[in-house]
Every structure is written in C-alpha cells, then in structure tokens.
C-alpha cells in the first residue's frame, strides 16, 4: 500500500549557507541544493515553493544566475506570516524547497533583438537571472536596457549589481525613485514614463516587465505606445498559490493557471484580462 510515486507536494530540506540584507524589509537567502537530489537546473523567471518548518509554504522567484545553479538565491520581501518567518532564519538553518516551477523569461526568443527590462520594487528579483543571462551572452543581443523604479534610494535591491551595471558600457541602466532622500542625485518619479525615451528599436525589441500589477499595466501601455507588439511584451503575474502544480486551483486567472501556464506570459495571451476587476 506504499505510494509508489513521490508526491509532488513533498518538500526537500536545503541548507541556508548565507543570508544578506538587501534593505529594511527585503533579504536574500543563499541556498545549497542537496547533492542527493541530483543537479538542480532552472531557467530565468522560474520560481520555487519555499517552506518554513511548520509555518507555511510560498512561491518565491529564483534571483540567482541560471548559469551557476550550484547555489541558489531567493530574494524576499517581508509582508506576512511566511515571509517574516523566512526572514528570521540564519545560516545553517534549512528550508524546504519544491521546484523549479513555471514559465521563464524569453531569453532565447530575444536573441538578435534589443531587450528592455522594466522592474518595480521587488520585481527586480525575478528579472535578475534574465539580466545575468543577457550579460553573460552579451554578444547575442543588441541594446540591453534596464529601467528600475524603487520607492526610495534606500530600498533599491541588488545595489552592488546596479552600481556595476551602471558603470558598464554594454547595458544602459536608468534608476528612478518615487521619493528622493537627501543624498539622491538621480531621477525622481515612477518608472513607466522612462519607457518613452529608452533607446530601443520598437520593431526589433523584446520587453520583460515585473512589478506590482498596476505598474505592469502602465508599463505595457507605454510600450504599446512606442509600438512594441503585444507578443513581444512579457509580464510575470502573481496570484495566491498553494500547490504550484496546477491542482489546487488557487492561482487561476480565467483559463490560465498562473503556476504552470505562467508566471511569465506574453501580453497578447492575457491582454483581454488585464485591467478587468476581480478576474
């Protein structure tokens, strides 16, 4: 009577090998996939289900380099029960991992094109593996542009990366903050208007957008206004998720299961749903 198959709901403990504070409410965990499970591989934009012992399980995107899956990063903002419990953990503790799940950013489809990445807040975390991929295979792409909006300068994620990328000639980084603090000398305002002036060829560009739903809607409108076709705009959607394997029903967005048909969608696939209330 022993179930022959392992349940896809079974989690595997992974040790935390390092923790890093990104800002006042966001932290990054560095994890080591256990060898017993065989090599772990993922694509930029995919997510794992993170389980805190006895507390709960939540979807969190992988924020590390897909080219280096020996250690895995998850960057999480504390917003509630599980994310807060996750934030209490230290090096040497373990969390449960199931994954990777979901669709990925179109880094293959973008070869030979300009790539414009629009991120808001924690939305930069799922896009980081895409950026790392683009930069690693830099010659395959034309212009690479990052537009990043943060609430305040202090809340910017991946500060080291941003500083490094900003000094590089092969990527154009535009960072804006909603509210400036004294030392800030950069742009102030929301990120979406930056799309208007970004240097890309509308006929040969792919856009990857992640942030709060409202920000993604405005960013999409700006991209459309610039003439980027709907099937060249990609968004990463978010919904409550209890299984990540298309069975619990929680993540349904009309016909789509965001956990398995997404989270990354080309805009043409969900255009008829965006902006409608309570889909």
């Amino acid at each position, binding site marked *: 009577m022993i179930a022959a198959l392992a349940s896809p709901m079974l*989690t595997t403990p992974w040790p935390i090998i390092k923790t890093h504070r990104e800002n006042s409410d966001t932290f990054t965990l560095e994890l080591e996939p256990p060898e017993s499970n065989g090599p772990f591989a993922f694509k930029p934009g995919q997510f794992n289900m993170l389980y805190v*012992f006895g507390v709960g399980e939540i979807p969190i995107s992988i924020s590390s380099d897909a080219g280096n899956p020996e250690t895995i990063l998850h960057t999480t903002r504390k917003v509630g029960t599980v994310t807060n419990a996750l934030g209490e953990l230290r090096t040497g503790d*373990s969390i449960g991992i199931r994954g990777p799940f979901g669709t990925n950013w179109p880094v293959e489809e973008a070869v030979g094109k300009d790539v414009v990445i629009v991120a808001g807040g924690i939305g930069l975390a799922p896009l980081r593996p895409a950026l790392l991929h683009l930069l690693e295979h830099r010659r395959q792409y034309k212009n690479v542009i990052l537009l990043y909006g943060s609430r305040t300068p202090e809340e910017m994620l991946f500060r080291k990366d941003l500083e490094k990328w900003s000094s590089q000639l092969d990527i154009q980084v535009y960072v804006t903050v909603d509210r400036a603090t004294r030392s800030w000398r950069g742009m102030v305002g929301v990120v979406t208007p930056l799309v208007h002036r970004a240097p890309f060829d509308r006929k040969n560009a792919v856009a990857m957008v992640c942030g709060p739903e409202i920000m993604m809607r405005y960013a999409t409108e700006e991209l459309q206004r610039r003439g980027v076709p709907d099937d060249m705009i990609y968004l990463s959607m978010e919904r*409550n998720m209890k299984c990540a394997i298309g069975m619990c029903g*929680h993540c349904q967005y009309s016909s789509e299961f965001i956990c398995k048909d997404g989270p990354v969608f080309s805009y043409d696939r969900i255009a008829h749903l965006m902006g409608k209330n309570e889909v």
Partner: protein
Amino acid sequence: MGEAISNYAKRILPSTDLDRLLEALQQKGYTLVGPTVRENAIVLEEIEGAEDLPVGWTETQEAGSYKLSRNGSEEYFDFASGPHSFKKYLFPPRLKLWQAKRHRAGFKVEQENDQAPSYAFIGVRSCDLCAIEIQDKVFMGDSYVDPVYKERREKAFILAVNCTKPGNLCFCSSMDTGPKAKSGYDLAVTEQLKESEHVFLIQAGSEKGHELLEALELADADEGAVEFENKQLEDAATSMGRFLDTHKLPSVLKNNFEHPRWEQIADRCLSCANCTLVCPTCFCHTVEDTTDLTGDVAERWRQWDSCFTGDFTYFAGGSARASTKSRYRQWLTHKLSTWTDQFGTFGCVGCGRCIAWCPVGIDLTEEAAAIRATDLVSD
C-alpha cells in the same frame, strides 16, 4: 463523453443475486462503497451488502431542497444524485500528505503512506463516471501526478448503474454525460422491474469486470430485455428535469464578464461554498502546514477548499476576488467556459447537486440561460 465501446455480452442478473455479485467483489478484497440512507438523504458510505442499499427509498429534489421519501418500490436504484459523490474517496476531503521532524539544524520529511483499501464503487451513475474522468485529468492528466489519487483510482472497481429515471434537477443529456454509462466502468447494470420479474441487465466494460461476471455464470440477456433497456434509456434521455443549452456557451460566458446578471445573483448567493463541496468535479483545495506543541514535528495536510471563500485568492494584502459577484462569476464561468480551455471538457456533468444543495436555490442552468438570453455581445 466518449462512445460506447463495450463488446462484452449482456447477461441477466436476477435481483436476488445482487448479493452474489457484491460478495464476489468482497472476496476479491474490495471494500464496497455505495448509496445508503443516512440522516434524511441517500449518501455514499461503506456498505456490507445489498441490504444496505436504499431499497424502497427515493427522493424529490427542487432548487434548494432535497426530500427523502419512501416509495415502497422494490428497486435498488430508484433515486438521483445525493449530496455525496465518489470524489470523497478518490480525493478525500482532508488528507495528510507528509510529516517532518526536526533533525540537527534541519529536518527530515516523510511521505504519508495512504492506507486506503481498494474500493468497489457501487451504483455509479454515468454523470458521476464522467466526473471521475474529469478529475482524472486534473490529478493525473498532466506532468504532475497526485499519487494518492492515482493509486486509489487505479485500484478501484466501478459498478455503474444506467439511469432510467432521471431526477427533476438532472441535465446529463445536455452535457452528453448520460443517462447511459458509455465507458470507464468495469460492470454496468440496468435495473428492470417488470410485473413478473426484477432483474439487472449486466454488461462488462473491462477485463476485470468480465472475469468477475464469468464467474457468476449468468444467463445471456434475451432480445426482449435488451429492447426494453433501449426503451428505458431513450425515455430517460428525454425526461430530464433541467436543460442547458451548451452551444457556444464558453464564449457566451467569457463575453459577458460585465453582465448585470452577476450582480443580481450576488444579491442571493451567500457565498457559502455548498455548491462546490457537493460538485463531483470541483477539485480546488488548500494546503495547511502545522506543528505539534513541541514544535519539533510538522505536518502538511490537504483539504477541500472553495473559490467562494475569502482566503482563496488572498495575496498582496487583499483578495483578488473580494465580491460575491466575482466569486459566483468565477465558479460558473469556470464550470461552463474556462474549464474547456484547461481540460478540453466542461467542468459540469449535469448531476444537479449544486441546485438542490444551494440553500437559496440558485440554479446554474437558469443563470446560464438568463445570461445567454441577454447576451451583451451576441454574434
């Protein structure tokens, strides 16, 4: 759903021999689950033999009501769907998935072994058979497979009953899910009560069923019995209490996301989730992670959930579907529209359960018809 495929010969099982069949199943190690009377309804429970079946009982169903009554008939299966469906045995309402124990700095996870016996489902109607096939697609039809569902499903024996007297809330003819069981059963029977005799016309639909039937050494069905069966099923197909026009229904519902009818339904709907719990195809569930008092042992449980609950779509500090209007719209549109995109079939088999067990008597066939009648985007 699917065409009739069984080429096995039809046989005659005298009603007095029903127990022989049930005993044969028990001898093969099956635990019988079938209809029986409990607390003013015909429910599905483990049964011991034919004496537990609801002989002499029937029920009348209306929108928002289910009334059990005695009719004195000798028939075993003279009733329509009750509040239970077989999903409670394949997809249990509450199930422990695994437990974990703290272990040095980390923890160890152990999958829970499913202890369920092999079930023989007795009296599965065609609609419920189709519902099982629909849930097969959810739990074992894609890249991930729920091992508990799969094992229970593969071990189960299905004794189907062709419907000869559909209920007042039934519309399987509209959904092409009955009244005759077309495939997916091990044995199917049609109950025939005539003045002179009370028999079951019985036919195997699988090798498993065939073997069992052969061992009972029954007489072949004569032409008269087969003709009578055809007549019974034809009559049944045209005496459905409800009707649903499915023509282009998926796009009608999608096009009418903003229809004022949703608001009107919301005025009545209590968002109580009854409809989803009684529905044989509804598969939504939630996951609960707990610890014991010491905090050293954790468990994960899976439990039925409903798109009508407040937490269902909770994220980023609020519910994606906060209003009752949006929840009913999600439910109906899922059943009769988006389900077809997801699984290639409707999520409704026309069993009528949600109509009977809705405390305020909301009838999905009426709601779908009302939206079609005032289609905002008719093409």
